[in-house]
């Protein structure tokens, strides 16, 4: 993986994201960690998952929450790399942060505008051949998190994934 950086960066996210469905303000803002890859390809997926895994542990995210974070990020990034960049590779930024009551992962790209939150859930009663490409990945990402918010940027997309933590800090 070349042209990448992992930067510990204070998160400014301390209030519920609009439309996230997650209520309750974070009691304390925790530091976030950012990974940026200049020209990410599918070969970088393992490193991106490792970054999310490491970040979750550094930020004290309960272990039981980690699998959902990995699925959501991996499926989202895969769709960007395959459908957004057409396998040619492109810039990807992943920010992982947490507060007392949630984990937030923000994924930014410079691919053509695409809002996965507007995709209908796939009909899981259909065989795989009847399902639209990418639909399964979006479904897995959506079902693994409590909130998914898309924002159109001047030069690409930002997808914010939110996982609520229970009162005991565990996933709900």
């Amino acid at each position: 993986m070349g042209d990448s950086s992992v930067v510990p960066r204070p998160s400014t996210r301390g209030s519920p994201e609009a439309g996230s469905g997650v209520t309750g303000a974070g009691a304390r803002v925790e530091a976030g960690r950012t990974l940026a890859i200049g020209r990410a390809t599918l070969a970088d997926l393992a490193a991106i998952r490792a970054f999310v895994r490491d970040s979750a542990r550094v930020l004290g995210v309960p272990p039981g929450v980690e699998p959902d974070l990995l699925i959501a990020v991996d499926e989202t990034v895969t769709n960007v790399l395959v459908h957004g960049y057409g396998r040619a590779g492109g810039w990807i930024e992943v920010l992982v942060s947490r507060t007392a009551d949630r984990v937030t992962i923000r994924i930014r790209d410079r691919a053509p505008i695409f809002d996965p939150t507007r995709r209908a859930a796939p009909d899981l009663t259909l065989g795989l051949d009847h399902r639209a490409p990418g639909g399964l990945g979006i479904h897995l990402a959506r079902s693994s998190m409590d909130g998914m918010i898309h924002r159109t940027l001047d030069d690409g997309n930002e997808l914010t994934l939110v996982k609520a933590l229970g009162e005991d800090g565990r996933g709900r």
Partner: protein
Amino acid sequence: MNLTVDRADARVPVTILRLEGDLDASNFEALLERGRELYAEGTRHLLLDMRGVPYMGSSGLVALHGLALVLGGEAAPDPESGWEAHHAIARSVESGMQPNLKVVAAAGPDNAVRRVFQRTGMDRFIEVLDDEAAALAAF
């Protein structure tokens, strides 16, 4: 991802393909290709040992579904056609559990392979067991 092959004799000859490592969009085509090779060599019943797979995404399901088609004597989608390959698949999986491919995965809801199967409904098409002996007996 590492792939190793074993053979077993159950009610029918079974090839066991053991996977070690993550299964994602970067390597799912290699798994499908290995399955094609095994079919060409005579394999008609395949057991995937996925107890050594800490992570699997939707790409893994594409490979597993392709393997099921190949083992049934049908052509799996061309990996070079990418995700559009979904539209080329002719076989309906709504007929129920297919008999040629089974998976062994670690028990427990936190297992990544089981999690993906259950969340996508694929466990209605490909049987997932937690014990190799039970999986072999199920063929």
